[in-house]
């Protein structure tokens, strides 16, 4: 079989690293990894004929192979970690990963709550609990997404979060993935598995940040979330690496009866960014909310693919994505909602709104509803537009110059997606992150500084 030159280095790297990967002595895990690398070998990188990758070319990723970091994760500067972490309060259980590997010194394994286990994925794979063994790799790695297979083959760190019946996290579990850019062409394969047993409640923040401009790096992340009946998981993903980072990630969610999954995604950083979120509501009366906001400028490319499967009756899904594109940025939104034949009384709503700040941007948005049941309530829609002239005039009539007025309205457009974020430190970090990236925001001191604005 012919293996493409872009794929070959990864196969070679796998042969080299295989013995040292966590859980290398466990046959079941070895088998999963072997199957995954074989899948990646057969599929290769997505090609121009892949409908799912129509607007996103991964050629820049293929040109040069990426390899695992060799530096010591403990060497990351405290100041860098503190700056990237944002205003996380003390008492939060926090795992810090530097170029893909856990830094124990920077992490705080505070008590995550009764019946809640938070472990580094590396440790969990070395001594896998039964629950991990049952779920690891079961949901990721669909057809058409070879990157998840690549992650499964190489996965060596990340987090395993397990909530027993009725357990709940008193504070959000904060997973901070730092890219230092101190070594060239570093790849990491962060892996997160969340298992929420019956009636448990979890708050998880998966946070990607870059320390500085630095050299190219590639974050290839996979998150699997399993919700048993009545479980409630809120997953916040924050993606703000530097401009030389490639970020490709999938979130795979499996939901049981009456469970409620919330995904809140903020994408501000990176050069080439792709997020896939797949939710399977596999039992009656499950509910999922997918919320996303993105701000891309310069030559950033951001692609969001979501798929929600209504497999059983009485499930509800709500999806809202809002984005701003500036400079020469490119955005892609593809949201599929599938209502299967048995899924009567499904309630599905989907919206994607885009604000274009420059004539050189491009957005390809495609909300898709596929309905195979007849008693359902579904809606979908997409908008693409510019800032409203009457809003601009209102601000200018109050003395705010046009540039700042534009920044303020753009901020407001995205801020609407943050109003419901219940974690105040996270909301503030995100507001600051957005304000700091808006052209014209320099004249708006304290924008996003909620305390100052309303105290």
């Amino acid at each position, binding site marked *: 079989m012919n293996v493409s030159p872009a794929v070959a280095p990864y196969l070679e790297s796998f042969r080299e690293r295989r013995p040292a990967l966590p859980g290398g002595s466990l046959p079941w895990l070895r088998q999963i990894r072997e199957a995954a690398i074989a899948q990646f070998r057969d599929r290769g990188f997505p090609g121009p004929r892949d409908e799912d990758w129509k607007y996103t070319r991964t050629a820049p990723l293929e040109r040069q192979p990426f390899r695992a970091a060799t530096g010591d994760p403990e060497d990351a500067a405290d100041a860098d970690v503190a700056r990237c972490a944002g205003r996380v309060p003390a008492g939060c259980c926090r795992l810090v990963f530097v170029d893909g590997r856990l830094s124990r010194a920077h992490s705080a394994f505070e008590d995550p709550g009764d019946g809640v286990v938070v472990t580094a994925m590396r440790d969990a794979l070395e001594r896998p609990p039964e629950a991990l063994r049952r779920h690891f790799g079961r949901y990721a790695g669909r057809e058409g997404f070879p990157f998840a297979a690549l992650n499964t083959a190489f996965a060596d760190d990340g987090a395993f979060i397990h909530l027993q019946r009725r357990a709940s996290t008193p504070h959000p579990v904060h997973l901070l993935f730092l890219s230092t850019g101190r070594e060239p062409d570093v790849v990491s394969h962060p892996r997160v598995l969340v298992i929420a047993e019956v009636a448990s409640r979890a708050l998880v923040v998966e946070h990607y940040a870059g320390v500085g401009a630095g050299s190219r790096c590639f974050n290839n992340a996979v998150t699997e979330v399993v919700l048993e009946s009545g479980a409630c998981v809120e997953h916040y993903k924050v993606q703000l690496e530097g401009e030389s980072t490639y970020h490709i990630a999938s979130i795979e969610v499996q939901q049981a009866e009456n469970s409620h999954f919330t995904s809140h995604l903020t994408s501000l950083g990176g050069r080439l960014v792709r997020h896939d979120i797949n939710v399977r509501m596999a039992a009656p009366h499950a509910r999922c909310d997918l919320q996303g906001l993105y701000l891309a400028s310069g030559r950033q490319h951001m692609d969001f693919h979501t798929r929600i499967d209504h497999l059983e009756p009485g499930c509800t899904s709500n999806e809202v994505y809002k984005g701003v594109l500036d400079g020469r940025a490119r955005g892609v939104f593809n949201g599929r909602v599938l209502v299967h034949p048995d899924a009567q009384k499904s309630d599905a709503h989907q919206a994607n709104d885009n604000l274009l700040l420059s004539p050189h941007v491009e957005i390809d948005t495609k909300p898709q509803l596929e309905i195979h049941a007849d008693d359902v309530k579904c809606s979908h829609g997409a908008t693409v537009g510019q800032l409203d*002239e*009457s*809003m601009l*005039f*209102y*601000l*200018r*009539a*109050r*003395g*705010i*110059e*046009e540039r*700042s*007025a534009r920044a*303020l*309205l753009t*901020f*407001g*457009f*995205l*801020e*609407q997606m943050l*109003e419901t974020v219940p974690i105040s430190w996270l909301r503030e970090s995100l507001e600051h992150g957005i304000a700091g990236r808006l052209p014209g925001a320099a004249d*708006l*001191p*304290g*924008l996003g500084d*909620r305390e*100052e*604005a*309303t*105290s």
Partner: protein
Amino acid sequence: MLQIADLHVRVDGKEILKGVDLEVSAGEVHAIMGPNGSGKSTLAHVLAGREGYEVTRGEVRYEGRDLLALAAEERACAGVFLAFQYPVELPGVNNTYFLRAALNAMRRHRGEEEISAMAFMKLVRERLRVLHMDQALLKRPVNVGFSGGEKKRNEIFQMAVLEPRLAILDETDSGLDIDALRDVASGVNALRSAERAMVLVTHYQRLLSHVAPDFVHVLNDGRIVKSGDHKLALHLEEYGYAGVGEEAALS
């Protein structure tokens, strides 16, 4: 303070103002009344600097400067304030932040220091009291989900905080219930001063029974057809605008 001379304005190719003359001095309150479509709101918007209004003839001087040459934000910074007939909703823009940004833009323009957060909140609380406005509105996005009355109160509240030299109130009384009308009127009255001028654009006399104007002008078909004191407003309330137009045509 404000001199409007022979002002002609077109909107979408149609002539709306056909030669307006008006002089407003500091300390005065002028009411501009007129039937629907007479050009009242066009006049208010032209003075505030809204785009899409083509001035074909005439001039407007404000404190000796050519007002029409200034951008909307420059006019605001120079002390011109428009209370909107339909205040715009700004989703996601915090009311307090917005108002402080506006005040600081004006202070920067005047070469003053920006106001501290504490001094600002003190000022805001003082002004809220006069208007009987709910403090919770400050934490909400600008005008989003506000009732009609709350939006109008918010306009007058902004005026009270920004302290303009020339305030133009465009149909601020329309759609207000009695309590809101009284609060808005007391807000306006509290701002009357020897240094400040006000132009009240209105369809009805109801606001004028709370805010006594020094002058009343009737705008009809793009021209001021009659001017007088507050008694003119009472006359209009009783006899309507039709008579005034004919009378002017005869004279």
